[in-house]
């Protein structure tokens, strides 16, 4: 099932649904409160009307065979309200009006002695509520049927009903607002486990393929179980491909090594210069392919590791010294001398040791490769405003190549066709620098030929 963007959020959907439910409940609450209150008000009016009719009935007398009524004041005063409600009454004896409003209509539903009847209708321009009571009064031994009707306009009741409606509206509104706010909280708290799971997955390093150890809510258990199965499959497949890459590298490089060794032997034994040259070209092609393979693997490793840096405090001085020591034999072969200048208090830097080493190694490797025989390579570590490692050689420099382009993948200087290289060295160094918040600067070696490649990192 797909949802439009807004409702793709579970939280929004949950919230909207809860809000809609509370709106419905608010309306229902409003109707119930108003209904109950109005019924109660009407019952009160009916009760007073009935009492008024009863008190009139009680005032009926028979005198000299005539039925008389001395209308008690209280019978009408009890109906008095603050509103301008008007009261009408009529007393009929055997269908003849004894007193009261002649035109007050007779009840549609005639009352019995024990049972009053009520009716609501329009009378003289207003809605009225009328009670009718029936009594039998004996005058000189002749029983007469007396019908007493008392009616009252409903202005007071309407006012009460209006007030009740206002209160009910208020109550409904407050209920709606409180319920909505609570829904918001409920939606948020219901989704907290999801958030926690997301955080648990996001926090992971690239190599962390252990199953999730969190205790999920019951509903999410199948999801977490599925995720863990997936992680396990991924780990198995990664291990397989790691093995595969190692195995592939082994399978490819071992015969290459054999070919190279045999080629070197053959090269040594050959006498004709053109044959020697051919063999030399073969060896260079082997070197080129193995170098590219190595750099590609390194580049993949750098990309993989920069996604989530493993960090530790590193003594930069020691790291530089170690890397230089590792590359010294290669420089030695050309009688190139690496001159290392490291401050007495070497700076410490928090970063990924393997990546940093890889960056320095690539820069140094370049410097050695392009250095002429008997030259110096200066490696200078300084720590002032920034931690800065300058590698300066006396080689051919970068010529007219654009220094930014040199950092892109497989791009090489315009003047290096005769030297084996993959065009990935500076890319790797640049990516490592950026992953650590630093930069890779490529400049001309001041005052001499050659290049100066610098790694610059912020002080921490």
């Amino acid at each position, binding site marked *: 099932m797909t949802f439009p963007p807004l409702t793709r959020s579970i939280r929004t959907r949950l919230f909207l649904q809860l809000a809609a439910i509370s709106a419905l409940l608010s309306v229902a609450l409003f109707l119930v409160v108003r209904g109950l209150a109005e019924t109660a008000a009407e019952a009160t009016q009916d009760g007073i009307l009935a009492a008024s009719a009863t008190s009139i009935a009680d005032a009926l007398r028979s005198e000299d065979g005539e039925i008389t009524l001395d209308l008690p004041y209280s019978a009408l005063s009890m109906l008095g309200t603050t509103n301008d409600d008007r009261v009408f009454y009529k007393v009929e004896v055997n269908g003849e009006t004894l007193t009261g409003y002649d035109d007050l209509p007779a009840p549609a539903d005639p009352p019995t002695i024990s049972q009053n009847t009520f009716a609501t209708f329009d009378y003289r321009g207003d809605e009225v509520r009328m009670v009718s009571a029936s009594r039998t009064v004996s005058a000189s031994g002749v029983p007469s049927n007396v019908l007493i009707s008392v009616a009252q306009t409903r202005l007071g009741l309407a006012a009460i009903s209006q007030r009740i409606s206002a209160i009910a509206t208020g109550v409904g509104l407050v209920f709606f607002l409180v319920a909505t706010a609570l829904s918001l909280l409920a939606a948020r708290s219901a989704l907290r486990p999801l958030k926690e799971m997301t955080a648990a997955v996001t926090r992971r390093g690239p190599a962390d393929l252990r199953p999730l150890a969190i205790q999920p809510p019951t509903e999410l258990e199948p999801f977490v179980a599925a995720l863990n199965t997936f992680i396990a499959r991924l780990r198995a497949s990664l291990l397989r491909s790691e093995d595969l890459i*190692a195995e592939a*590298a*082994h399978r*490819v*490089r*071992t*015969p*290459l*090594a*054999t*070919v*190279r*060794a*045999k080629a*070197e*032997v053959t*090269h*040594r034994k050959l006498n004709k*210069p053109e044959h*020697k040259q051919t063999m*030399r070209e073969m*060896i*260079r092609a*082997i*070197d080129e392919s*193995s170098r590219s*393979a*190595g750099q590609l*693997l*390194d580049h993949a*490793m750098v990309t993989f590791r920069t996604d989530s840096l493993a960090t530790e405090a590193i003594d930069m001085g020691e790291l530089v010294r170690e890397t230089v020591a*590792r590359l*010294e*034999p*290669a420089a*030695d*072969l*050309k*009688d190139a001398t690496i001159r290392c200048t490291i401050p007495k208090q070497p700076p410490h830097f928090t970063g990924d*040791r*393997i990546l940093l*080493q*890889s960056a320095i*190694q690539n820069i140094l490797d370049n410097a050695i*490769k392009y250095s002429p*025989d*008997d030259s110096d390579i200066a490696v200078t570590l300084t720590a002032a405003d920034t931690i800065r490692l300058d590698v300066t050689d006396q080689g051919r420099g970068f010529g007219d190549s654009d220094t930014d382009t040199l950092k892109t993948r497989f791009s090489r200087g315009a003047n290096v066709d*005769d*030297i*084996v290289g993959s065009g990935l060295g500076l890319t790797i160094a640049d990516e490592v620098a950026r992953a650590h918040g630093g930069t890779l600067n490529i400049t001309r070696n001041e005052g001499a030929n050659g290049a100066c490649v610098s790694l610059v990192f912020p002080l921490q």
Partner: protein
Amino acid sequence: MRFLLIEDNANLASAVAERLQLDGHAVDHAGTLDDAENCIAAADYDLILLDIMRPDGDGRTFLQSHRRAAKSTPIIVTTARSEVSDRVSLLDLGADDYITKPFDFSELEARCRAVLRRRGGVAANRLTVANAVLDSTAGELQIDGVGQTLRNRELRLLEVFFTSPGQVFSKSYLLDRLFSFSEDVGENAIEVYVGRIRKRLEPSDAIIETVRGLGYRLVARP
């Protein structure tokens, strides 16, 4: 130098052995780790070249047990994997150095030399002609007890001559010994280095003679 080559691939092993022998080294080959143990028990080696990826158990275990047994023979690991993370762990396990396959033999030799020099204490590898003594491990030329520290190419060139005094070496042969395959240099470049070692040898009774049309040889002054 005497090498023990631990490598299961027979083709590669024979090629490497042949190549090392060309430069005058002695090489024993062990195809399995068991063979390797036997070789180590029977002979003294200057260096062990260990292939880390093996069908008969991980080379790392061998590395560790070798180090635990406190054997002093340095080990250079040859590996087909080139990732930095791999290299770092190899050094942590006790390898003295590593080199990625396929390797340049002059680089391998340079690394061996560096390892041996770092280790120190190894019996010096001395070659003598007249009153000149070449200590290739220390990279030093001693004449009447006075030592001169040599640059790498001077050392390698002197090594060629000191190993076979009297033999004539052609310029092209010397060129192969001195320069890597990635460098395009003319035969004249060799004259520069011959000039340098002649200067080094000046105080001694050993001289480098030019044999017209053939090359150079090292002889003792008559």
